[in-house]
């Protein structure tokens, strides 16, 4: 298992290299000249040229790429064109809110979606099943920002139970941190709850037909043990797969959610960087998200071996 994880980490290297090449090419593919942007509207062509030279943008593509990769490998993601601060520290400042939002969303999603899917499969065809699936379609169809505003309106403005927006770091206490994240996580999680509940139901429906479920019933096991131990563990592979994909999709959703709830996270940083054509920042964020995604995939594959002993690498 350890050697498998090690090999998997090694095999992510080429993936990361290709990602890096794409990220770096952004600078050339995307419209707009960063040198001109930094120079501003009033600059003369000579000023733009000077800035271009200062940033090394006039050198050949491969030289620039090699130089960039070399610096990244040394932990230097470059300097923001706009704020002149190191990209790594800009990202570090914004990392906690985004990771917190993703973590809370993920936990909430799994805790709600998996039991809903299991119950829907158990009571397949019943009113309970149809109600859950109707809600799933509903949750799936509503965009994050609509759910976000509705939740904020109801629970923050009308009932005054939770704060409308903002973020409090975890060091200032668990509850202040959590209360700022509940509504954003609910808004962001809606789609994933729907998605994971549906997949759980489908996987469970198939497993519940299996002979070993009949054996479990013949042993006199209770319904809970049959559903959540005997059946769910067999249905886990597709569910874990979808949760993994969900984490990747969360990254995109976090951007919108952070805007709606004014959370100073990576999503906001990304939007600001794109609007300002702050390429080093964009590159740094995309690299980070790619790395996270590769990591999540590794975790998904390792989880397979934990839930199904027949899967060995």
């Amino acid at each position, binding site marked *: 298992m350890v050697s498998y994880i090690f090999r998997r980490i090694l095999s992510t290297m080429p993936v990361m290299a290709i990602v890096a090449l794409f990220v770096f090419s952004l600078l050339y593919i995307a419209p707009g000249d960063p040198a001109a942007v930094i120079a501003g509207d009033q600059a003369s062509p000579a000023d733009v040229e000077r800035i271009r030279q200062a940033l090394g943008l006039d050198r050949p593509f491969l030289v620039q790429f090699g130089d960039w990769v070399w610096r990244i490998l040394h932990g230097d993601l470059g300097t923001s064109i706009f704020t002149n601060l190191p990209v790594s520290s800009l990202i570090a400042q914004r990392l906690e809110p985004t990771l917190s939002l993703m973590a809370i969303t993920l936990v909430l999603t799994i805790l709600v979606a998996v039991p809903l899917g299991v119950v829907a499969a158990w009571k397949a065809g019943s009113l309970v099943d149809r109600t859950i699936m109707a809600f799933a379609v509903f949750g799936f169809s509503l965009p994050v920002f609509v759910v976000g505003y509705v939740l904020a309106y109801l629970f923050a403005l009308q009932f005054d139970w939770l704060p409308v927006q903002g973020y409090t770091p975890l060091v200032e206490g668990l509850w202040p941190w959590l209360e700022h994240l509940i509504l954003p996580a609910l808004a962001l999680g809606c789609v994933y709850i729907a998605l994971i509940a549906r997949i759980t139901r489908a996987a469970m429906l198939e497993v519940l037909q299996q002979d070993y479920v009949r054996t479990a019933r013949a042993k006199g096991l209770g319904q809970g043990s049959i559903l959540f131990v005997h059946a769910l563990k067999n249905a886990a592979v597709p569910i874990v797969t979808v949760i993994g994909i969900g984490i990747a999709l969360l990254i995109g959703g976090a951007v919108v959610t952070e805007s709606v709830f004014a959370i100073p996270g990576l999503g906001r940083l990304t939007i600001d960087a794109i609007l300002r054509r702050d390429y080093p920042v964009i590159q740094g964020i995309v690299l980070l998200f790619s790395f996270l995604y590769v990591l999540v995939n590794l975790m998904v594959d390792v989880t397979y071996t934990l839930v*199904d002993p027949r899967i060995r690498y």
Partner: protein
Amino acid sequence: MALLEVQNLQTHFRTPEGINRAVDGVSFHVDEGETLAIVGESGCGKSVTSMSLMRLIPEPPGKIAGSIRFQDKDLLQLSEHEMRAIRGNDISMIFQEPMTSLNPVLTVGRQIGETLRMHQGLDKQAALARAIEMLTLVGIPEPARRVREYPHQLSGGMRQRVMIAMALACNPKLLIADEPTTALDVTIQAQILRLMLDLKRRVGAAIVLITHDLGVVAEIAERVMVMYAGRKVEEAPVAELFRSPRHPYTQGLLGAVPKLGSSLSGAARRLAEIPGQVPSLKKRIDGCVFAGRCALATDLCREVAPGLEQKAPRHIVACHYAPRGAAAA
């Protein structure tokens, strides 16, 4: 005294095409420590009968009626909770498919142990120790290692041994074995049958053996009940049944078994077969259920269903024309 007394068992399924009378008014009993075989073709209601005894039929679409008295309790009157305390404890079951009847993601020890933990309140350690003991009992080598393995690491015969260990872990009074050897190699079949008989003697359990294999019946059953189209058509002690089968269907079943050397005794001798197939159970049949396939059927058979009659000591048959009296041979 009868351990199990089934009266007028009716298991019907509601389907879009109408009601399927999978089991239609079957009565039988099993004495303590006795082995009763239920035989018949596929689709005759054997398995549904066995699933009904455990109340494992999904309701709806299924519906079980009649009475199933086990140790003087009517199982059909019990709550689901009370029934769970009986399943796997007083009555346990072995299934046909050892390859798919064990849970692939749980260890063998866990699957044997959880019955013990639930029904006998053993803790984790004690359950594991007892699971190892059970594996030893069913003849699995290196039980201490095997107990930590998963079903896919075991052969088909081994898995059926695990199923038997699981079924016998709580010393049940009644073991229902639904085609326990059908999916196994012939050499393994004999081993598994011997094991079942041996353990039955040790544990003192009664067995209801569901099978279509008359060889298996001859080997381990004491009494045989023949089912056809959801009804009981004949019942007799095993030797009596083989010596003088009285229902045309039973005679057909016995005639359809190949005998060693029969092909040498003349080119004209062919394996007898029963023409046609089991009738649809979705229509109510007024006359004898077998009339459509019976060479001896008359208008009487097609109009009036024959009742079960005692034709010889302990031998009952549902046929208007079955011979009466003790076996001739």
